[in-house]
């Protein structure tokens, strides 16, 4: 005969039962125990040491190997593919057992790249709306500035007198070629060609103006400024592709930083400061 309980007794029993259940649940969760039965894949074809091979995997492998879905294959073909998947699974388990994944540099690189690709996939797949791009362009106009560009001609002479004669002549210089190409150049390029001293002298010239002879250790120069294109913000229509690429790049970086932040938060990271300090003194 079952014992009869009064209401307070029943409540106490229920509380104790719940307490026991909660205790066990906490223990199970903390131990990281996974109940395979609850998460079992109903598409499973075969399990290899509790690791399932599913219909989807068979289909995927069939497509990869034959270009057809698994249901288009004969039983023999299906068995060949599934046997291949079993062999692969056994080798993957062998790799896990040996800890190859965490030590082989090639696998480490592939794993890191795959996680990064996963983290940024959403950002890269999303189309960029015009308003988003315009807002981004307005907020980051400095990225789309075309710097000052100068078209300059520099003529080289062996003596001051020769340079002075060329300057005195009213006709343009035709007896020698300029040491610079006749195309607009940003300042850093100009400095690379001429060096700082000559570039600084060139910056004092207006368009159409020719400098006085400039004596340098290696030669005497005449500089003739052809055009000066001031620094300007390029319109969005002209830099749309560049703006889209930059927008995606930043979105990708943000998504990756966010993922890394989440991983850091869930990880236990310890830095061996003593070992690092010792390294500094070596």
């Amino acid at each position, binding site marked *: 005969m079952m014992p009869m309980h009064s209401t307070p007794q029943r409540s106490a029993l229920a509380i104790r039962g719940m307490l*026991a259940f909660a205790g*066990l649940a906490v223990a199970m*969760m903390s131990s990281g125990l996974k109940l395979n039965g609850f998460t079992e894949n109903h598409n499973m074809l075969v*399990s290899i040491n509790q690791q399932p091979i599913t219909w989807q995997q068979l289909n995927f492998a069939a497509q990869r190997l034959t270009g057809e879905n698994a249901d288009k294959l004969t039983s023999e073909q299906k068995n060949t593919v599934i046997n291949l998947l079993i062999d692969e699974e056994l080798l993957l388990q062998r790799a896990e057992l040996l800890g190859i*994944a965490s030590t082989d540099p090639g696998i480490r690189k592939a794993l890191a790249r795959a996680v990064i690709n996963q983290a940024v996939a959403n950002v890269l797949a999303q189309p960029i709306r015009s308003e988003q791009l315009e807002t981004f362009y307005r907020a980051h106009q400095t990225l789309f500035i075309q710097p000052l560009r100068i078209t300059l001609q520099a003529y080289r002479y062996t003596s001051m007198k020769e340079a002075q004669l060329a300057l005195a002549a009213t006709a343009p210089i035709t007896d020698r070629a300029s040491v610079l190409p006749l195309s607009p150049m940003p300042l850093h390029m100009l400095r690379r060609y001429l060096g700082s001293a000559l570039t600084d002298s060139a910056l004092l010239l207006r368009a159409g103006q020719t400098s006085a002879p400039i004596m340098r250790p290696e030669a005497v120069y005449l500089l003739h400024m052809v055009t000066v294109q001031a620094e300007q913000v390029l319109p969005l229509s002209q830099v749309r592709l560049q703006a889209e690429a930059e927008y995606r790049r930043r979105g990708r970086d943000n998504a990756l930083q966010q993922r890394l932040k989440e991983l850091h938060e869930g990880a236990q990271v310890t830095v061996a400061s003593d070992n690092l300090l010792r390294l500094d003194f070596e």
Partner: protein
Amino acid sequence: MSSSISSHRSALKLLLAGASVGILLGALSAVSHQGNEPYLSATAVASVNHQQILLAEYRRAMSLFANDKREPLTEDDRSLVLQRLIDEELLIQQGISSGLMRSDLAVRAVVLESVLAGLITEIEATDGDSAEQTLTDYLAHLRATASIEWASNWVAP
């Protein structure tokens, strides 16, 4: 009547014992997860979820970084290199735990290549049999020692 009371008491005691054991295990487990500082050997610069980043790895990364930089390395550079190594380790651990070894085709291919390359090297070093035959035998051995269960709706080959 008395036997029913005594069995009721026993049941209560069992419940209480279960609850206490559960709570104790949970608490112990939680405490051990939080308070257990990983052991860091003298050859490690950091540990990420108990996986150590070795001094040699750090040195190699520093040297690569230094090759790309003209000026001498700064304290910030050193921190950056260490941070990148930690990030990389986190990404790799995440890749392994999320099953990318199986689900990502590129990773899967690299892992299989690596295991096969290792096996072939082993085979070539130990005997003169053809690599293909030895590999087939090895796979047969793996199958024989594995637990392979076919789903009921699948006609096993």
